[in-house]
């Protein structure tokens, strides 16, 4: 059974996932065959232009994480999304759980509020 969800925050102006979100979802789906996957564009929470795809949270529930420590799980996700992380995505919050862990606790903490660091990145680009 596989449940694939793609969603943007209700605060986002876009009504559908952008190309980066779509690519992230496909790559994570292909790599981890997850029983649950959520790709959330959190860019609107940061000081970046409207409709940006720079800050994401991903929730990946897969038995490929069985017996794998937290750091290594995150490295697996980072490696899968290497291209995106090198080309524009510079914040990636990861929840990587096994199905057993997810069944015990499926809460996903809210990401912290932006404190303006992204403005620095925008200035660097100018």
């Amino acid at each position: 059974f596989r449940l694939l969800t793609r969603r943007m925050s209700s605060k986002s102006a876009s009504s559908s996932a952008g190309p980066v979100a779509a690519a992230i979802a496909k790559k994570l789906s292909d790599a981890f065959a997850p029983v649950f996957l959520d790709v959330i564009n959190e860019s609107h929470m940061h000081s970046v232009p409207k409709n940006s795809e720079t800050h994401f949270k991903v929730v990946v529930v897969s038995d490929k994480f069985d017996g794998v420590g937290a750091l290594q799980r995150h490295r697996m996700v980072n490696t899968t999304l290497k291209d995106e992380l090198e080309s524009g995505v510079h914040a990636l919050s990861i929840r990587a759980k096994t199905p057993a862990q997810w069944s015990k606790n499926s809460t996903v903490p809210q990401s912290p509020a932006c404190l303006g660091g992204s403005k620095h990145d925008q200035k660097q680009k100018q």
Partner: protein
Amino acid sequence: MIRGLVRACGTRGVNRPGLVRFCSHPDFAEKSKVPNDEEMLAEMKEDIKSNPVVLFMKGDPGQPRCGFSAKVASILQPYNVKYICYDVLADQRIRDGVKRISNWPTIPQLFVDGEFVGGCDIVTELHRTGELKELIGKYAKDK
């Protein structure tokens, strides 16, 4: 020269004595020389190797410029440990360099005993489970 090296203590605010903000390393101050990329990277590696707790973040603990960085700094604060803190926004080479050292793409980054521990998500989880206390509790300063 602003180099982005901030020495911080877990319980100290920005203005406490002993906290130097944006200081030049003494070696470079004498030479009045801007470190090249290799020197910068070597110094970062040496700091990671020779200091028990090293945090790379956006901004500094007193004035973080990123929510994820602020969260890690706030997690460290009650542990009462003295740690080295680099502001990756002060010099792009710091930001690029730490990513090469850790092979980790995002900021913040926490190193303990010379090893990369994780970013915000992992540090938050380690704090929740008590594993972070096992890692850095021994470095708590006496009050």
